């Protein structure tokens, strides 16, 4: 498969003396593939459009930030805990929300993410403690160079893609697809759709939390506004959509394309990039609703 030479190339890039910028760019792409892939695991497969995915990313970010700055925990432990915390919170949130249909689910998840942001902003003031540091944000110790995040990002990306592949081929994945195609029929046939949805939701949350932790360490400074930004969810949505929702490599294609586009335009034509993304979305929805991978696959 062409995957093997590409994987080897990617693994060598940081060691081959390419510019630090390229390493950073690829690392960013890997992490976006990871994020979009997480969103895809839930929303792409089940059709339940989650507008609050950034909530788990933010929870994970804060978990790592707090552990590393206040408890001086090591990085690996922190990001794993971040993933776990996110997944744990996903359970009580997911159970009621995943019963909602369509638009309501979207709004509820959006409300969840916004509420999380507001809670972290107001908690210290309300409870009279110094914990989340509210709007002031948390600073982490300066960490290793981009190569570290490159390999970590690469690893996470591979895991998310592999997970998507495995889910798609499993009975679990079948249940998720049944939810997307004909939920009521599936339920009547005895499929426990709620359980499948919640599982997907929690898996997605785990990895989002993990990635949140990784990026926090990379950025070394986070505030609630930064890590609960609805624009992060939006990027995930668009990347999956463009690449092909529910497919294994869709998020990878979408994330790579959009990130490169962003890098090319963002600096000199900042608005052009976003307007272009808008047009891409409109065009994809009207002409290519299955996304790039989905459409190519059909031929």
């Amino acid at each position, binding site marked *: 498969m062409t995957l093997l030479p590409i994987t080897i190339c990617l693994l060598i890039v940081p060691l081959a003396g390419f510019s630090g910028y390229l390493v950073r760019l690829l690392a960013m792409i890997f992490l976006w593939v990871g994020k979009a892939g997480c969103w895809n695991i839930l929303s792409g497969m089940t*059709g339940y*459009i989650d507008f609050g995915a950034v909530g788990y990313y933010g929870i994970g970010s804060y978990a790592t930030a707090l552990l590393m700055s206040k408890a001086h925990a090591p990085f690996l432990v922190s990001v794993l805990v971040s993933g776990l915390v996110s997944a744990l919170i996903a359970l009580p949130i997911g159970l*009621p*929300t995943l*019963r*909602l*249909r*369509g*638009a*309501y689910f*979207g*709004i*509820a998840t*959006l*409300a*969840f993410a*916004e*509420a999380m942001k*507001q*809670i972290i*902003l*107001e908690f210290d*003031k*309300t409870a009279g403690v110094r914990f989340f540091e509210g709007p002031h944000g948390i600073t982490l110790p300066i960490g290793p160079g981009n190569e570290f995040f490159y390999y970590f990002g690469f690893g996470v990306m591979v895991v998310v893609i592999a997970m998507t592949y495995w889910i798609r081929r499993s009975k679990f994945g079948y249940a998720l697809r049944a939810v997307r195609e004909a939920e009521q029929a599936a339920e009547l046939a005895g499929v426990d759709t709620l359980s499948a949805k919640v599982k997907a939701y929690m898996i997605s949350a785990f990895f989002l939390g993990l990635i949140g932790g990784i990026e926090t360490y990379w950025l070394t400074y986070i505030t609630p506004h930064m890590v609960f930004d*609805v624009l992060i969810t*939006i990027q995930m*949505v668009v990347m999956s*959509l463009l690449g092909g929702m529910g497919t294994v490599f869709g998020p990878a294609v979408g994330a790579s394309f959009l990130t490169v586009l962003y890098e090319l335009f963002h600096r000199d034509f900042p*608005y*052009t990039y*976003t*307007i272009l*993304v*808008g*047009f*891409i*979305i*409109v065009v994809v*929805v*009207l002409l290519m*609703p299955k996304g790039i991978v989905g459409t190519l696959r059909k031929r």
Partner: protein
Amino acid sequence: MLLFLQSLINGILLGGIYASYSAGFSLIFGVMGVINIFHGEMVMLGAFLTYWLFTLFHIDPFLTLPLSFFLLFVFGYLVQRFVIHRVVEAPPMISYILTFGIHLIIAYSALWVWTADFRAVTTSYSGLNATIGGVIIPYARLATFGLALIVVAGLYFLLKKTETGRAIQAAAQDKEMARLMGVNITRTYALTFGIGAAVTGVAGSLISTYFIIFPQMGLSYTIMAFCVVVLGGMGYIPGTLWGGLILGVVQSLIATYLNAGLSGALTFILLFIVLIVRPAGIAGKGIVD
């Protein structure tokens, strides 16, 4: 006591403002099931139209309202007719993604052309208010409250008492049946969207007289419209008044008696709870998928 009254009135007026720009959102969703993510952009466009007419030609904001209504109507009609209509048969998620793409195009084109500067329409009568029994009532906000009442009543009248309105309702309830009865669905949808856009644009025009405006303001208005409409009941027009009022009053009282930060957090927590517990909204008359 006076503080309570003042905060309450403030909340009521705020609620009216919320309702004024959310009614259109509810209408569009109620009739064609489209969650319009560029809804806030229509508020923004109405606001900027008024701003430019005022700044460049010194036309009083209140005089720009009819133009705002007309232009936004045309805009809404055309966008629905030629873009959104294509996905009206598809699952709802497609429409949110599509309208999201349109949101990006409009908001960032506006940003490009008008720059990110904050602007305000400051007329000679800006900020003027009346004092009744010690309570201050700003005129501009009162006017918007009035507009909300007019819009809600107007839409209600339109839907229940006119031929067009009945066609819209028929299309909303059962598209296929309506079609069989001779209703031109395509035109009806476009008309509905146009009306929704028009009333929203007018709300935006008024808003420019007391809130700061800037090209990226749309998204937060869209989110607020969601909240109002969920509380009031999706697709149930009179509900937008209730939803708006409840939100406005709750936010105002919390900000006055507790702190402003909590009002934000509580809005979303409230929204979340309502969605789980009573998705049809306070009055229970909303459309639940």
